[in-house]
């Protein structure tokens, strides 16, 4: 399987099963429409009005060479690979909902504005401790374990966050584990003490902001209805400045209200937030801010604009990264990881303040997906297997898709929310993801082309 596309002034072909990427000229782009499924004579005839015969012949020879070298039309042999068949995922990551409460209100909040459709509550140290114990005991011989402090707003339960970090560290040596703690926060409660703690103990921090003041404040506001932009921006600047080279993301959501979201990313970059991630809202089709198929053309043009801005600013003092453009085309994750997907429900679990276990944070509050409780020590391995088996070869749409080794089948929660089936991916999400992958390849091509010039 191959995927060819044009972006900007460049043509590309991706060999899906090997991961090889080639910059091609227009003749190759046109020839691949007919070749190798048709013979050379037929292709030369098809293209005779556009290109000289000799050029087409040269082109077909080059295509043949790449096929021989396993860099074009490579077979997919992974589904039967022993490594894939024998994989036995263990739990290695937890999303700890330390607070089902929030100090702001976001119009699009999937957590029902902080309470996840339940009572507002904070996780006790005891419940968090049991969750970490469960993680360690179910992680087999995996050394690196991840714990994200999530909410609601996790800083509303900061003392328990600190206690759990200390407890996690106390488990490391005896069990040969390395905890990587992360925090996702709206920033309102950040102060010097918390910033210093976060910068010392959290390997990554995700700071929520949607971009320009008017965009952010329309969707992210305080309980009394005021915008949050002015409260958080200076705090984020200070935290990032103090953080040095440690990893962080400013992370935003775009909606129908800001279809020109590239301007929001660039606004954040101009504020000095150079590690960015902005994503489409997950909403019901009936929500006024929901993204529809009619928006795809506009959104694709925004990704084009963002890719061009990233290239233009590369190696300048305005350089930035965008999470979904950061594909490592030269290596990246192994194919086993790419086939297995995000790991929700099998490698990754979410735990509520009450200790209830769900496949991921997006499923919290949906009883059908409740897998157990850390206090009772129960785990529904039936659901674990259902999620483990929801990989790209078991999804009809994914099997035939060129993007499957980059998105790995997409988000299970999106699939469930839109199609009531974790095996049927969410179409709009797929289209946007494909555009982001093409943009990543385009950026890679442009930056390498520029380096040679």
């Amino acid at each position, binding site marked *: 399987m191959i995927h060819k596309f044009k972006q900007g002034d460049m043509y590309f072909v991706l*060999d899906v*099963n*090997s*991961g*090889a*990427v*080639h*910059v*091609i000229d227009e003749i*190759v782009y046109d020839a691949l429409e007919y070749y190798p499924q048709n013979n050379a004579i037929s292709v030369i005839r098809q293209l005779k009005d556009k290109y000289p015969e000799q*050029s087409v012949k*040269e082109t077909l020879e*080059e295509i043949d*060479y790449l096929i021989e070298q396993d*860099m074009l039309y490579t077979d997919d042999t*992974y589904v039967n690979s022993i*490594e*894939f068949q024998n994989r036995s*995922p263990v739990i*290695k*990551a937890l*999303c700890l909902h330390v607070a089902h409460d929030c100090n702001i209100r976001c119009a699009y909040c*999937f957590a029902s504005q902080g309470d996840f459709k339940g009572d507002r509550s904070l996780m006790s140290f005891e419940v968090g401790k049991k969750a970490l114990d469960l993680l360690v005991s179910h992680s087999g011989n*995996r050394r*690196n374990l991840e714990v*994200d402090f999530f909410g609601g707003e996790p800083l509303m339960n900061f003392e328990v966050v600190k206690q759990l970090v200390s407890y996690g560290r106390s488990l490391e040596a005896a069990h040969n584990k390395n905890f*990587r703690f*992360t925090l996702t926060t709206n920033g309102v409660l950040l102060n010097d003490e918390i910033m210093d703690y976060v910068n010392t103990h959290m390997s*990554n921090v*995700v700071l929520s902001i949607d971009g320009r003041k008017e965009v952010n404040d329309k969707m992210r506001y305080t309980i009394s209805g005021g915008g949050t932009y002015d409260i958080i921006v200076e705090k984020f600047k200070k935290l990032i400045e103090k953080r040095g080279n440690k990893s962080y*993301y400013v*992370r935003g*959501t775009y909606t129908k209200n800001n279809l020109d979201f590239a301007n929001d990313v660039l606004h954040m970059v101009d504020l000095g937030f150079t590690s960015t*991630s902005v*994503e489409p*809202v997950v909403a019901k089709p009936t929500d006024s801010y929901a993204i529809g198929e009619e928006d795809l053309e506009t959104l694709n043009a925004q990704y084009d604009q963002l890719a061009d801005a990233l290239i233009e600013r590369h190696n300048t003092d305005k350089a930035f990264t965008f*999470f*979904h453009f950061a594909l*490592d*085309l030269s*290596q*990246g*994750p*192994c*194919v086993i*990881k*790419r086939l297995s*997907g*995000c790991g929700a429900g099998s*490698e*990754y679990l979410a735990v509520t303040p009450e200790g209830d276990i769900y496949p991921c944070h997006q499923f919290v509050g949906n009883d059908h997906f409740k897998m157990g409780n850390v206090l009772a020590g129960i785990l529904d391995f039936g659901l674990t297997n259902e999620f483990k088996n929801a990989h790209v070869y078991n999804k009809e749409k994914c099997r035939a898709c060129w993007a499957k*080794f980059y998105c*790995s089948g*997409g988000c299970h*929660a999106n699939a469930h929310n839109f199609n009531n089936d974790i095996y049927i991916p969410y179409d709009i*999400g797929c289209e946007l*993801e494909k555009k982001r*992958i093409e943009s*990543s390849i385009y950026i*890679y091509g442009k930056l390498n082309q520029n380096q040679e010039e």
Partner: protein
Amino acid sequence: MKHIKTLNTGTLKSSAVHGGCGECQTSCQSACKTSCTVGNQECEKK
């Protein structure tokens, strides 16, 4: 080659043999939380 410039030769096949250690980051933990991009995760064996 005159018409094709290879940007990278592709490592997926070799990664099938050496991969699967599972030490890498869980994709949703990093920065997305609402969509899934696995291709941008880093390999811990790198």
